Structure formats: C-alpha cells, structure tokens
C-alpha cells in the first residue's frame, strides 16, 4: 500500500512537467503582454527605459530559454515574483489556498449531505410523487449555472447579516461559526449542481443494489428494513458515488474561481482571475501547478477511499 502511494505520487512529476509546458506557452499566447498591460496606452517611454522594462518583465529572451530558467528556479523552490505587485508569488498563493480548499470541501460535503439521503429516499419511493419532485429539482440543479445561482443568492440575502461575506472574510480558526455561516451560500452555489449528480447516482445505484440477492439474504435474516438499507444496501450503492465524487472534486475547485469573485472571497480563484487579466505570468503559472497537483492528489485519495470501501479492489502496482 505504501509503495503504491509513493508510485502514485511519483506520477505527479510527468503531470507537472506537462502542465508547466502547456501553461507556460499558453499564457503567452493571450494577446497583450504583461508589459503592454502595465504601460497601458498613455505612457511614453524612451528606448532605454523600454529595454530596462523588458528585462524587468522578462521579455528580453526567447520563450524556451525563459521556460528553462523558470523550471530551474522552481527546482530551487523559487516561484518568482508577481509582475504587478513585486511580491513573491508563493506566499500569496499559500495564504489564499485555504479559502479555495475550504470552499471546495464545504461544497463537496454539502452536496453529499443533500444528495445521498435524497437519493436513498428517491430509490425507496421509486416513481411516487416525491421521487418525481426530487428528480425534477435535481434536473433543475444540474441545469442552473453556478454563477447565476450565486448572483441570485447575493441579491436575496444581501440584507441578511453575516450570510454574504462581502469583503469581511473571517478564517475558520478565528471564528469557526461565523466562517461556516459566511461560506455556506457560496458553497451551496458551487455544490448544488453536484448534489443533483450525487442524488441521481445514489438513486440509480440503490435501485440496482436493492434487487441484489444479498439484500434478500439480509431480509431473510430478519433484519429490520432500516438496517437492510443502511448496512447492506448503502455500503454497496455508495461505490459509484465515490467514483463520481472523485471526478467532480476538481470541477468543484474550478467552480470556486467564479464563485469567489461573485462573493468577493479572497481565494486563489480570484487571484488567478486578476493574474490572467494582468498577464501576470509567474502567478498564473504557479496557480496552475498548484491546481494540477491538487487534481492528482484528489484522484489518489479517491482511489484509496474506493479501495477501503470495496474489499474486492486491491491496489497493486500497475506494471506487471
């Protein structure tokens, strides 16, 4: 098991090389360089000044050379400096990462807390009014864009004290209750669509599992219905839900970028958005590397959780 985890972590390296290549060249394909963004249209500069600025903004060398220099810096743990603020990139990202992570985790937990029980209920009351209502709400949840839901929430709750963050961010360790309250609506906006996905997966999976022979065995033992469902059926029905949760965790992280903007939460997504607007290459590149690493880690965690939930799966080294 330990060997397996190490191997999976080592697979981070090629992923990161690929991501770094793509990101590095892609951001430079966006029209307008960092320097142009900085200069705007008004400012005049002498050729000497322009030379200096170009060196400062790293536009004096060919892009492949810049890439190699950048990778070399990162190997030494130096993620460079923001072209806009002049501050080192890494501390800025690390201070914002917890907000994005909390938002993602929170929305994940909300989605599971809403989706799984509703999915179970729907499967037990298959084709009744409640089931149809559930499925219709689920369909709506799937179809609503997150940012639209978020905007509606801001409008609806803007007068309610403490529900909308609006710039007065409080960390989880300072005041847990207020933090959770403040993050509730943004997380719900991100997680609502995913809750619908979880609900549908749970429902379909339960419907299938409830037909299985071992559920009949459990009933024949004389177990009450509640135990049959929770112990015998749900343990099996949850497996596809774990898989889909793993897939979607990355998607939720992406969703947090837009939602942080709507709710004015100082997370990594907001930082990325500004960096892209300003062509702040070092910041964009660093953020993308962090997100790619998180993606790989989430996949690893999903596989580990799945292996714990399903004893038939054994994690073995892939090459054999």
């Amino acid at each position: 098991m330990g060997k397996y985890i190490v191997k999976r972590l080592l697979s981070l390296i090629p992923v990161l090389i690929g991501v770094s290549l793509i990101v590095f060249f892609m951001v430079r394909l966006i029209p307008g360089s960092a320097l142009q963004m900085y200069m705007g249209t008004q400012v005049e500069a002498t050729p000497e000044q322009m030379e200096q600025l170009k060196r400062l903004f790293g536009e004096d060398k060919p892009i492949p050379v810049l890439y190699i220099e950048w990778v070399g810096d990162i190997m030494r743990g130096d993620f460079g400096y923001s072209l806009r603020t002049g501050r080192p990139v890494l501390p800025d990202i690390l201070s914002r990462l917890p907000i994005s992570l909390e938002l993602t985790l929170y929305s994940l937990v909300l989605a599971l807390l809403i989706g799984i029980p509703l999915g179970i209920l729907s499967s037990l009351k298959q084709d009744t009014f409640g089931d149809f209502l559930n499925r219709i709400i689920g369909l709506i949840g799937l179809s609503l864009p997150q940012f639209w839901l978020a905007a509606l929430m801001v409008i609806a709750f803007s007068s309610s004290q403490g529900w909308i963050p609006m710039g007065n961010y409080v960390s989880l360790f300072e005041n847990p209750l207020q933090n959770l309250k403040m993050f509730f609506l943004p997380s719900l906006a991100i997680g609502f669509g995913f809750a619908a996905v979880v609900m549908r997966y749970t429902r379909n999976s339960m419907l299938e599992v409830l037909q299985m022979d071992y559920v009949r065995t459990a009933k024949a033992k004389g177990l009450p219905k509640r135990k049959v469902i929770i112990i015998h059926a749900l343990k099996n029905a949850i497996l596809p839900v774990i898989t889909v949760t793993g897939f979607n965790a990355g998607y939720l992280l992406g969703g947090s970028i837009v939602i942080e903007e709507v709710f004015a939460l100082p997370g990594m997504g907001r930082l990325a958005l500004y960096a892209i607007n300003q062509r702040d290459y070092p910041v964009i590149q660093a953020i993308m590397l962090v997100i790619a690493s998180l993606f790989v880690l989430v996949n690893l965690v999903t596989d580990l959780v799945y292996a714990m939930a399903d004893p038939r799966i054994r994690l073995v080294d892939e090459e054999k």
Partner: protein
Amino acid sequence: MHETTILQVEGLVTEFKSERGIVNAVNKVSFDLERGQTLGIVGESGSGKSVTNLSILRLIEYPPGRITGGKVLFHDQDLLSVSENEMLSIRGKHISMIFQDPLTSLNPVIKVWKQIAETLMLHQGMKKQEAKKQAIELLRIIGIPDPEMRAECYPHQFSGGMRQRVMIAMALSCNPDILIADEPTTALDVTIQAQILDLIREKKEQYQTSVIMITHDLGVIAEMCDQVCVMYAGRIVERAGVEALFGSPKHPYTRGLLESIPRMGNVGTQRLHSIKGSPPDLANLPPGCPFRDRCDKAMDICASQLPPEVVLQEAEGERTVACWLYPQEGKHGRA
C-alpha cells in the same frame, strides 16, 4: 393440523403484476411439513417453487408481487396475518433460508464473520465479541478450515462451496425450526454438491430441523427428501412419499420428468426422453389443465376443466394427484 406438523401451507396464492397482466406465480398451493422431515419441491424454472417459499417468509416485493390468498400456519399462527415486526423475529430465527447462488447471496463488502454474527446479535441478543466467537465456532462446525483466519475474509476470497457453507452456517446459526434451501447446489460443481447435501443432511439430523428443499434436480430429491411436491405452472400437480413417487409416478408430468433422467444402461442405445413443448404463459393461462398441450394422455375434459386434487390411498400412505386420469375422489388409483 397433526401434532407433528410444523408448517401448514393452505391455498397459497401469490400474484405478480406484469406488463402483460396479472401472473399467478403460485396458485392455490397447499402442503404440510412434518417435524424433522425433508420436503422436496420439484419443478422446472418458473413453476413457482421459489415464489412459494419466499411467500412463506413474506419476502415477496410489493410491487410487483403480492400474496393474495391462503394461510401459512406455523406454531398455530398464520404468518400471512401477523405484523411485519413479528415476522422479523421469525425470519432467520425460526425459519431461515439458503439460496441458489452463494456468490451473489453474500454481501460482497462485509466480512464473513460479521454476516454470520449479525444474525446472532439480532436474534440471540449476543454482544459483538461473543457473536464473533460464536460465528468462528459455526464456521468450524460447518467445515471451514482455519476459521479464525477465514472469518476475517470477504466472500469473494472463498470458493463456491465454501460460500455455500457460510450461507448454511448463517442459516443454522439460530438453530431454526425450518430450513428452506432454494436450489442450494445448482450453482456448484458436482463433487461440491454432494458435500453440501451431506452437510445439510448431517446438520438437519443434529439439530432436528425440518427442511424444505427446492430443486429441479430429481437426483437431489431422491437423495434428500421424505415427501415430494411436484409443481407445474404455479400448482402442485402431484404429492407423494419419495419412494412412491419414483416407484409409481401418477401424473403424466411427473412421469415425463422421471423419464427424462438419463440412465446408465441406455446411454448410446436410446434417445433421451424429453417433454415436448414448453411451459404455458402464466399471464395468459387457458382454462383447463395447464399441462394438457404437452400431455400425451390429454382428453376432452382436460381442455375445459381444471383437474381437482384427488387423494389416493396406498399401502405406503396418502398421496395426491391433480389429473383427470384419476377422477374419483378417495378411490384407489390405477398403478
């Protein structure tokens, strides 16, 4: 009800709603199970043998299935009219079941000992540790080598025969009055089949359990049973002691079944007999005897009227048959 009768099924009717209408999977089935006896129920697929037994434990899913008539008398109470809660204390404790496919019948994500201990904790009020010890003991009794280690395994780590042993351990854990074995050997290798049948017989004698053995294998019936019910299209068409049934089958269907067993001496010299045609569509049963289209003794009356069960008195005891070849009630049947 005799003193020795432990279970009495009377006029049991179970129907299923299907797209093509109501299907009477079990149609007025009656039989008695004597204490310590093994009763065989034989018939082809879809004849209603499994549904009959699921109905006894009220394990028919509604919808689409529903028990619409009859009585199941066990210890002077009708299981079809007791509350669901009372039913919970009968299932697994007084009447338990083992199923055809032990791979799909055991929960794949729960350790073997837990699946056995669950029943003990539920019905015997054991604590977890005590139940675990007892579960390991049951595994030992049932012939699982190295039970302490195997108890920690999951079902997929067991062979088919081992899994069926686990099922039997689970079913016998509370020392039930009745064990219903629904095709317990169908999914197993022939050599394992014999072991499992031996095990069931041994435990049955040890614990004085009455057994209902559902099978389509007449070999199993001959080896295990005292009494036999032959089912066809949701009805019992013949019921007799095992020797009487094999010695002188009365119903043309039973005869057909017995003739389709290959015999050693005839191999290569004679074509194997088969019953022509296929079972009738239960959703669309014509009037009269459901077997008449496949019967070589069919008469005019068979097309219009359902044959009643006729009781035949023989030297070995009572037997019944539902066929117009035996019209007079109470008289001796022709051999």
